[in-house]
């Protein structure tokens, strides 16, 4: 499944040898490795990377909205291994309708706020997250600001008739 230029790299090759089904492709551009992971396998892949391949740090986690393309959302995980001095980007493709993916808080505690932020700003649901509520926007806010169909300017309410 992996392109040829990834097969020579240790981490993608090791992941493919461990579970070829989990990966849906990948690329190596500008010296940065990106692996596409099947959404249902994300926790297993992350746990394997952390426990077997020394990726002890989750550096960041967020999302890209490809509206109006489908699959609409790309959730990305920026992984870092201090021991290997290597970085890896995992990506999960999610549909625009009801985007749900398993939470990785059980692997890295630090994923907590990143997942809450992604839930808040993109509306991605992370199943298994201990406390999935809005982080940046006020409680009860309508919509998810970083989605491409959310306007950049404008007022939510008209104050003229009040």
């Amino acid at each position, binding site marked *: 499944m992996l392109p040829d230029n990834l097969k020579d790299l240790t981490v993608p090759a090791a992941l493919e040898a461990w579970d070829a089904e989990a990966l849906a492709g990948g690329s190596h551009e500008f010296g*940065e490795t990106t692996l596409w992971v099947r959404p249902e396998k994300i926790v297993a892949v992350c746990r394997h990377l952390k426990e077997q391949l020394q990726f002890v740090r989750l550096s*960041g986690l967020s999302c890209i909205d490809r509206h109006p393309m489908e699959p609409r959302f790309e959730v990305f995980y920026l992984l*870092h291994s201090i021991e290997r001095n290597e970085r890896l980007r995992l990506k999960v493709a999610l549909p625009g309708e009801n985007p749900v993916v398993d939470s990785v808080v059980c692997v890295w505690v630090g994923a907590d706020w990143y997942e809450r932020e992604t839930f808040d700003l993109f509306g991605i649901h992370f199943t298994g997250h201990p406390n999935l509520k809005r982080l940046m926007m006020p409680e009860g806010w309508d919509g998810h600001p970083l989605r491409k169909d959310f306007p950049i300017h404008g007022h939510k309410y008209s104050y003229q008739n009040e």
Partner: protein
Amino acid sequence: MSENGETAFTAVLETTQEEKLPGGRRRMTLNMGPQHPSTHGVLRILLELDGEIIQKAEPDIGFLHTGIEKQAEALGWQQVVTLTDRMDYLSNLANNLAYVLPVEKLLGLEIPPKAQWLRVMLNELSRINSHVVWLGTHCLDLGAMSMFFYCFREREDILRILEMFSGQRLMTSYIRVGGVALEPPRGWEKVMAKFIREFPAKVDEYESLLNTNPIFVERTKGVGHVGLEKLLDLGVSGPMIRAAGLPWDIRKSEPYSSYEKFDFDIPCYPESDVYARYRVRMEEMRQSARIIEQCMAGMPEGDWKADASKVVLPDREKMKTQMEALIYHFKIVTEGFRVPAGEAYVPVESPRGEIGFHVVSDGTSKPYRVFMRTPSFGNLQCLSDLFVGRLISDSIAGLGSMDFVLGDVDR
């Protein structure tokens, strides 16, 4: 949260409902902030106290959320640089650099050595600036009022130098895609040399005021300990990790902007308490001064912006005499430059830890998505671990030792 932490959490909740603890004591909920003098910004912490001991601490952030990531999608590639300053007013040059590097990576730009040296030099200056302000305010929290004045004396000198270079004291936006914004000003060497010559003695001065100060030592030594494994798991980076005994510095492990050509040490202390974090930052200031000295001694000759006519504005002289330069000038000013489709992430060691911008381009003149991985956001997640089970007075020392800027957390 770990399994143990979770059970402790629910246990706390249950006893709150009962209101009373054995021995007739009661649990109290205390609202710290949003405007509390020691939170250095708009941070709210919900504390649950059993006497003086914190049983639960829940940070509430988002008060300074300005939607910078959304705004970045509406501006041109070069304009986003000005937004990065406003995230964190203390390490603005590191923020500029962290944004500019992945964009230059996508563009495939070659940055001339002089621009790289200038970037390194000013980055280290802003590291000193940030640590000096941290030291002053941290000591203010701990009751050492006079430190604040000493530290702000040096900060004023640094801000004057930054103003000399960019015309701005805080929002410098000096580092741009393709090099730096302006030619270095006349006479900067003299001012910088004077500052760097005097600065190490000032660090000694700070240390003589604090290292033997029994109140300061008592309030910081052994306070706020969190294990290294826990810190890594939480995504903490920067001085906090180095104060926990791991010599991990992005300037050494993944050098950017020619950092591999400079000679400096990574200060590292194993105690992982507030005092160790203080020691690490003090030592880092000395190392930064060392790097600036090397920058000044070996400043290369040549241009301070890249030779890329489609990205960098042409010289005034060229613009007025060459047709092509005028066309490029018009294109850059009206539309901005286009960046080839792709995505890149380059980590940078800011004064607070790892900062990096995950930049996504779809080939147009505006970024498609800019994810800002800010160090304060990652570091603040360990607040609960620093607080729970400790005295409320120690929590202030622990909070200060994290060195976060709330604008950087909320973006």
